[in-house]
């Protein structure tokens, strides 16, 4: 009886599980390279581009800090709380530190972080290399 119940349950669930896996495969295949690589960060980050800029420009032995300014309307709801964690993942093994060599700025007040602005966009995101 238990075997019959298991067989029926497996047969009932199998098409759904297969369909879910197929759906995931199709959805992932349609994504852009960037969306696929940023993945979870799309629900968190104010800006994808800033991650690529930070990863390309900050040397692997340099330190950085994340500065988050006033929340913009186009930011994901989770941005203020989880952006530092996501930036840490992208920039690992670089260390986060106060008064770091670099500042990853998301709509922050740049005046508070004196240094060379090596990259910025129109949405208030920037990379600052401290002197």
């Amino acid at each position, binding site marked *: 009886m238990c*075997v019959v119940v298991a067989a029926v349950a497996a047969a009932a669930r199998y098409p759904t599980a*297969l369909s879910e896996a197929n759906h995931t495969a199709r959805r992932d295949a349609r994504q852009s390279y960037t969306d696929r*690589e*940023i993945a979870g*960060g799309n629900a968190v980050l104010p800006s994808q581009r800033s991650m690529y800029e930070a990863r390309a420009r900050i040397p692997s032995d340099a330190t950085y800090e994340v500065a988050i300014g006033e929340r913009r309307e186009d930011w994901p709801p989770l941005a203020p709380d989880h952006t530092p964690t996501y930036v840490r993942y992208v920039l690992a093994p670089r260390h986060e530190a106060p008064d770091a060599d670099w500042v990853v700025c998301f709509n922050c007040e740049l005046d508070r972080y004196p240094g060379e602005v090596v990259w910025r966009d129109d949405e208030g995101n920037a990379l600052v290399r401290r002197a």
Partner: protein
Amino acid sequence: MTARALAGLLVLNAGYLVVGSSLLWAVRGYGSWREWARYAGLAYLLGIAGLGIVWTLMLVVGVPMRALAFLAGAVLLTVLCAIVGRARGRSRPGPSAPLVLTTLSLVSAVGIAAVGVFFEALFRAGRLHGLYAFDAWSFWVPKAKAIYAEGELDVDFLVQVAHPSYPPVVPLLDVAAFHAMGGVDVVTLHVQYWFYAVGFVAAIAGMLLGRIPGWILWPFVVLVLVAPRMSESLLVPQADFLLQFLVVAAVVAAVFWLREEAGWPLPVLVVLLGAAVLTKREGLLLAAVVFAALAVASADRLRTAWPKLAVAGLAVAAIAMPWRLWYRDHGLTGESPPGFLPPLDRVEESLRLSLDVLLDPALWSLLTVLGIAAVVLSAIWGDRRLALFVGTLLVLLVLGGAWVSAAFTDLPISADEAVNPIVRYTGGIALLAGVVCPILLAGIWAGSRRGTEAVP
């Protein structure tokens, strides 16, 4: 996301199989090449477990964990197993008897086809999947990236990510995958977790086929794979499923040991549980529960069985120690709850939560209900020792989950996976239920055919 990355993973996993095969040859030996093929899944899991332990020890003693170090660890373990195997008089596998295709029942053929089609779909789902899971990008993968870049776990970096004291097997296996893929490819990394799932199913099917009729085994194997929470989360690059694969395979080895089949299941159990305690902190709890259930089920063989269990338990504890000494020496904390005894006001609520999650068909289909039914039926008509073992295991696991929720007072008592690990923890119980069900039911079936109690 390249063919080169996939080819690299294929080579890496073939390497796990080779290392594990040598380990299983040393402790068990193979009568024929077909027997090797049958146990290939178990050998693969043992390869991962054995290398997880060796690489962790290397990391702890300060070996720079570059690509060569990973390779050296694998070669070292293989050579060691070869020497032990030789010393124990193991011979090369002999020729296999001709394969009689009629021995493969129609049900087994359908089961294998269903599993194969599902894994093909799962491969495509994992092949281009981004890293979405919060725990994966918040601490598992950052730790792996740190080891990959620096060859060590830098404590200054470790304290910046969540759970710095979590054991390092999963980050180390991820690093091995990065080396094999030629870089930090967090997308193709999901395929590595697909290999773990394939290896686990091959291990369970290989160990049980021939002992259990296919019509009893395959419905449960398929149900385990397609149960809602399983099919959705098998490829998430976190420690949960790998931990559960190791523990459930160890439980099957424990079942063989309880039947006094031979001496090999106990060393296999030690390696699998040894890796489990280095995979996640819950591994300590799960290993303790397995040993406790084994002790209860073998209480009538106190003088012969318990000393062996004590030695095996000490071996697992010895494997667990170096990492714990390392992180304490580096001033890290966080594996233990604030107190062993949870606050009373949380106990009842936690227990209710554990039972609610355990019996939720939206998560596990009917796996856990069938597991409980199989234990009861087996206690009445089947192998009572086995029923006692599995029943004790299930009860202790549920209590263990309740204890985790209650004792870690910062966890809200909730089934929300974002704030409480009870759903992920209970996944192990569901997986276990799905695997032990056919073993218990086959015992009842065999008993009814022989007119006596029998084991599968």
